[in-house]
C-alpha cells in the first residue's frame, strides 16, 4: 500500500515536471498539422542555425575531451605550486552567469577590448563572429569533463601501469592499452554532458555573437527570435529537434557505456 503511494507520488512528480511541458510543446508544434512543421524544418535559417549549434558543440566537445582529460590528469598525478587554486578555478564557470561570460569576452575581444590591437594586426574577428561564440561555449562547458575525469583518474590502479612498464610497454602503449580502457566510460559521460551543455547555451553566445541571422544565430537563438517574431511553430519545432537530439545523445552514450562494461 505504502509502496503504491510512493510510486504514484513519483509518477505525479515526473509527470508534472517533465511530461506536461513536453506534451504542451509537441501539441503547440503540431497545432496546424504536420505541414507547417516540415516547412519550418526546410527553411534556410532553421538549418543554418542548427548546423552552427552542432558545429560549435562538436568543436567544444573535441577540445574539452583532450584538454579536460589533460587537466584532470595533471591535477591528479602531478604536484605543483598553485594546484589547489587551479582545482578551485575550474568551477568558476558554474558560478558565473553566461551573460557575464559573454560580456567578459566582449571586454577582451570587442572593438575597444584589451586584445583588439592584436586581433586587428592579425585580421582575426572574434567578437560578433563564430570564434567568440566557440570561446564562450568552451568557457561555460569547462568543468564538465574535468570534474568527470578527476575521480576516475584517481581510482586508476597504478599496479597495472607499473606491471605493463615492467613488461616493456612504453608510455604510448601503456596509455592506449591500460589507461584508456579504464577511462572510456567516464570520457563518454563527460562528452555527453559537455555536448548537452554546449547545445543549450544561450546567454553567452547571444552577447558575444550578437544573434546575426544566418551568421551567428545558433539553434537556441533561433528559438528566441522566432518567439519574438511570433513564429511559434518554428520555435516549437526547433525545440523538439534539439530535445530529440539530446535524448538521442543520452541514449547512445548509455548504450556505449553498457557495452564497455560488458566488454570488461
Amino acid at each position, binding site marked *: 500500500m505504502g509502496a503504491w503511494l510512493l510510486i504514484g507520488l513519483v509518477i505525479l512528480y515526473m509527470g508534472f515536471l517533465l511530461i506536461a511541458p513536453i506534451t504542451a510543446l509537441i501539441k503547440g508544434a503540431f497545432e496546424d498539422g504536420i505541414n507547417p512543421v516540415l516547412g519550418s524544418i526546410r527553411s534556410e535559417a532553421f538549418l543554418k542555425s542548427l*548546423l*552552427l549549434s*552542432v*558545429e560549435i558543440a*562538436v568543436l567544444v566537445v573535441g577540445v574539452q575531451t583532450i584538454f579536460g582529460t589533460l587537466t584532470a590528469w595533471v591535477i591528479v598525478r602531478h604536484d605543483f605550486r598553485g594546484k589547489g587554486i587551479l582545482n578551485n578555478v575550474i568551477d568558476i564557470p558554474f558560478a558565473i552567469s553566461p551573460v557575464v561570460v559573454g560580456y567578459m569576452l*566582449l571586454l577582451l*575581444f*570587442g*572593438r*575597444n*577590448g584589451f586584445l*583588439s590591437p592584436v586581433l586587428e594586426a592579425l585580421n582575426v*574577428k572574434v*567578437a*560578433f563572429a563564430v570564434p567568440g561564440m566557440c570561446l564562450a561555449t568552451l568557457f561555460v562547458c569547462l568543468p564538465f569533463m574535468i570534474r568527470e575525469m578527476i575521480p576516475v583518474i584517481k581510482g586508476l590502479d597504478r599496479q597495472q601501469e607499473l606491471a605493463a612498464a615492467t613488461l616493456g610497454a612504453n608510455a604510448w602503449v601503456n596509455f592506449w592499452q591500460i589507461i584508456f580502457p579504464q577511462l572510456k566510460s567516464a570520457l563518454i559521460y563527460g562528452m555527453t554532458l559537455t555536448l548537452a551543455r554546449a547545445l543549450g547555451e544561450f546567454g553567452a553566445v547571444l552577447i558575444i555573437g*550578437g*544573434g*546575426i*541571422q*544566418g*551568421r551567428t544565430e545558433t539553434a537556441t537563438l533561433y528559438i528566441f*527570435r522566432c*518567439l*519574438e*517574431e*511570433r513564429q511559434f511553430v518554428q520555435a516549437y519545432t526547433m525545440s523538439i529537434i534539439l530535445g530529440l537530439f539530446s535524448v538521442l545523445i543520452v541514449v547512445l552514450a548509455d548504450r*556505449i557505456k553498457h*557495452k*564497455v562494461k560488458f*566488454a570488461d
Partner: protein
Amino acid sequence: MKNNKKLISMCLMILFLLVSCSGGSQNNSANEVKLILGAYTTPREAYSQIIPLFQAFWLEETGQRVVVEESYLGSGAQSRAVINGFEADVVALSLEADVNRIQDAGLISHDWKLGEEKGIITTSVVAFAVREGNPLAIEDWNDLLQPGLEILTPNPSTSGGAMWNVLALYGAALRGKIDGVPGDDADAAQDFLKDVLTNVSVMDKAARDSIINFENGIGDLAITYENEVLVGRQSGQTYELVIPSSTILIENPVAIVDTSVDKHGNRAVAEAFVEFLYSEQAQEIFAQHGLRVVNDTVAEASKSQYPDVPDLFTVDYFGGWDVIMTDIFGESGIFTQAILDVQGGSQ
C-alpha cells in the same frame, strides 16, 4: 570494440561533412555583395518584407545578388554592440541618441542628418496596449495611477522604446495635459513619473520582449509603440490600442556606419538600401506594419489607420536629444532619480 570504432569514424565523417558544408557556403563571388543590418526590435516584420524587394531591385539594377544579414536587439543594446565591434553597415534604431552614440565613438563620420528627412525613416507615437474590452477603462495617462495596476514598460538602459515611453509620460505631465498635474512644474511632473513607475511590475530589455510578456498574460497594461500594438493585433492578438490625448512623436533614424562600409567596400549598396527605405514601396510596407511614415503620399493614404493626436509633441519640446540624455537619463537626471527613489522605496 569494433562497434565503437565504427561509431567514432562515423562521428568524424559527420564532423568533416559539417565543416566542408560551412566552408562551401562562404563563397564570395563577384556577383554577390553582403549587407549587414543592425536594427531595433520592433520593425522586424517590415524589414522581412522590404529586404526581398530591395534584393530584387538591386539584382535588376546591377546584376548583383545582395545577401542581407539581420540582427535585432533593443535599440540601446544594438548601438553599444556596434560600438563594441559588431560591424553593421546600416543601423536602423529607435532614437537619434543611439545613432549619436555610434557617431561619438567615431564610427559614423558623415553628417547622417543631412537628408531631406534628417535621417528619420519612420515615426510612431507612444501608446498603451490594454486587455480586450479595456476592462479597467484606461483612456489616458492619469488612469495609470489606479492602485494595484500592473504596468509593463521596458528598461531605458537597453531599450529605445522605454526612453520614448518615459519622455511621453513626463512630457505630457510637464505640458499640463494630465488631470491633477499642474503644467510647467518639473517637480509635479517628476512626482507623476514616480507614481507611474511605482505601478511598473516588469522592465524588459526591449520593447518586443515587453509586449510578448504582455501577450503571455503578465500585467494589465503595456506602455509601448503604437506599431507594436498594431503588429501584435495583425498576428491575431486581442489586446487593444489606446492612444493618450497627449503623447510624443517617436522618430526612428537610419544611418550608414562609415567604418563598416569602408572596411567591407559596400558603401554603394548600403546607400542604395537606405534610399530604398524612403521609396514609396518600402514606406507602404512600413505603414502596413503599424508605423507612421515620412513619405507624404503614403502618409496621406494611410491616414485613416493613424488618428491625429490632440497634443503631439516632439523631442524638440525638451531641447533635443543632447539635453534629454543629460537632464532626463543622465546620472542625476529626472528619470534616473525617480527610478532610484521608487526602487529604493520598495525594498
